[in-house]
């Protein structure tokens, strides 16, 4: 049986949790889910997880789990694993999913694979995962039980199961040791408006890199992003130079995006950046260097200076009276 740690977000499972359930279904027909803490609408979440092939949901509740503590969440997950005898425990490759599973792997003294994009075999499970910021892949053999790994975001499609299930719902209050609560969230600030969330979910992203030239060089790309109903994303050099805030960064150490259309302007396409934008459906690159990696990997390219090309696109959109389609 495969146990999947599901992270709810605004009442429903987040996208990468659903992607992880899709990978789980490729491995086994026996899938159960763990959710930690309060759930806004149990019936809705249960129906959603059932639609994605989950036959039982284990909800861990209690005062100890009211605010996040990686060790406490892992303790809760560990108790479900022990009682169900699950031989695989997986989660989405989010910061929280990776943290909780690494705690679990350390507690059980078994190996863990981070950011899997696929899995084959069963004894051992051979997990293929991204390393060196996506410049290489690693095959890793997980020969211990349970096999523990996280699933890289956007590597599986979050499609529902062919035959939905009606999950049983098991609520329990696990024992949490004091020591596992030493590092817990003691305060949560307000999420800043227009944080990286809008970038990660944008249908269109307009990107800008070193080619912007200075902190003042982002006016046209910002305007284009707005005209297309999208978000601005930038390369690492842009945030390193202090031209734009870190939450706009796309790449290995920034946000990973998967828009319908990505328009990188003046971005050469270093591997760190590519790791964050490779899942874009269509890429239209604008660059003075036709041989830049981004230009050769893109679907469409315009050879030219972003300072001339982007304003010309804006003018053309205005001339045609174009509006965002969604």
């Amino acid at each position, binding site marked *: 049986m495969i146990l999947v740690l599901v992270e709810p977000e605004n009442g429903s499972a987040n996208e990468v949790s659903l992607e992880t359930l899709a990978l789980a279904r490729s491995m086994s027909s026996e899938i159960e889910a763990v959710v930690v803490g309060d759930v806004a609408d149990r019936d809705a979440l249960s129906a959603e997880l059932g639609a994605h092939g989950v036959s039982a949901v284990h909800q861990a509740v209690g005062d100890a789990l009211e605010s*996040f503590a*990686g*060790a406490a969440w892992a303790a809760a997950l560990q108790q479900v694993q022990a009682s169900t005898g699950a031989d695989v425990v997986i989660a989405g490759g*989010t*910061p929280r999913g*990776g*943290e909780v599973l*690494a705690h679990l*792997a350390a507690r059980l003294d078994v*190996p*863990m694979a*981070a950011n899997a994009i696929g899995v084959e075999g069963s004894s051992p499970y051979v997990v293929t995962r991204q*390393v*060196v*910021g996506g*410049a*290489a*892949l*690693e*095959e*890793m053999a*997980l*020969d211990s039980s349970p096999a523990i790994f996280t699933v890289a975001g956007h590597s599986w499609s979050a499609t529902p199961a062919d035959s939905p299930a009606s999950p049983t719902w098991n609520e329990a209050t696990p024992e949490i040791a004091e*020591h596992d609560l*030493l*590092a*817990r969230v*003691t*305060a*949560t*600030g307000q*999420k800043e408006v227009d944080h990286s969330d809008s970038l990660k979910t944008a*249908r269109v992203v307009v990107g800008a890199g070193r080619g912007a030239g200075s902190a003042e060089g982002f006016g046209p790309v910002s305007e284009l992003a707005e005209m*297309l109903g999208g978000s601005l994303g930038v390369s690492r050099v842009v945030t390193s130079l202090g031209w734009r805030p*870190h939450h706009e*960064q796309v790449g*290995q*150490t920034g946000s990973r995006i998967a828009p319908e*259309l990505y328009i990188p302007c003046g971005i050469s396409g270093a*591997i*760190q950046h590519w790791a964050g934008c490779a899942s874009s459906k269509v890429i*239209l*690159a604008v660059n003075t260097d036709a041989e830049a990696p981004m*230009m050769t*990997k*893109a*679907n*469409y*390219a*315009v*050879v*030219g200076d972003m300072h001339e*090309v982007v304003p*010309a*696109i804006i003018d*053309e959109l205005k001339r*045609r009276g*174009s509006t*965002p*389609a969604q």
Partner: protein
Amino acid sequence: MTNVLVCIKRVPDSSGQILLTDDAQGIDGRFVGFTVSDHENSAIELAIRVADATGGTVTLVTVGSDEATEQLRGALALGGHAAVLVEADPATLGPADIAREIAQVVTDHEASGTTYDLVLLGNDAADSGDFQVPIRLAYALGRPIVTGASVVEVADEVLVAHVDGPEGEETYTVPLPAVASVLEGGVEPRYPTLKGRMAAKKVGIETRSTSDEPVGAHRVRLLLPPAESSSVEVLGDGPEAAGAVVDLLERLAVVR
């Protein structure tokens, strides 16, 4: 006074193309530059600030080949006081091994009078991307851990760490001794000064061997992602391409 231990790793600079060794077990280091990850540079910066604020010291540790001395010296030049090299072939080690070796350094130094109330690491290794050494180290030391902290501060024997969480900025208030992994972005790492570089050359690096047989990384092999053949369609040159671009935007139903 808080003495801080910062764990760093010599990693290939992944901004360029990489090649694999013939046995597909590692990255061919002959044609790449080596560096320390951005997360670890931020960890070094935070360690220096904590040590300065509390009158403590910064010690660097790495587990790797003799060549990693270059990265230790680079970190010392920023303001480190001491450095430790645990000499090992990095290809033979997994995250559990690296955590065990670092824990051994902490324990041994404590026995000889130097206590590290705070151990900082990068959020993940830039090459192997395991996301585990900080947490496995915390368990080996029996200490609490905060992962993905963008800023850490120490006041009155308490670690205050800030994490950009899914619902907003999260604050952790954790009693020392503790472990924290750092995500770049919260502080601007400093650059070395000439004086710092000169001082770093004079620091003696403690060299040790590993304490136990490695359990390894469970690596079957490395692969390069399949090369994608370029099928790029050039829409035009310069501003004259604007019409073709907007045609495309309409075709993709981005605008109407």
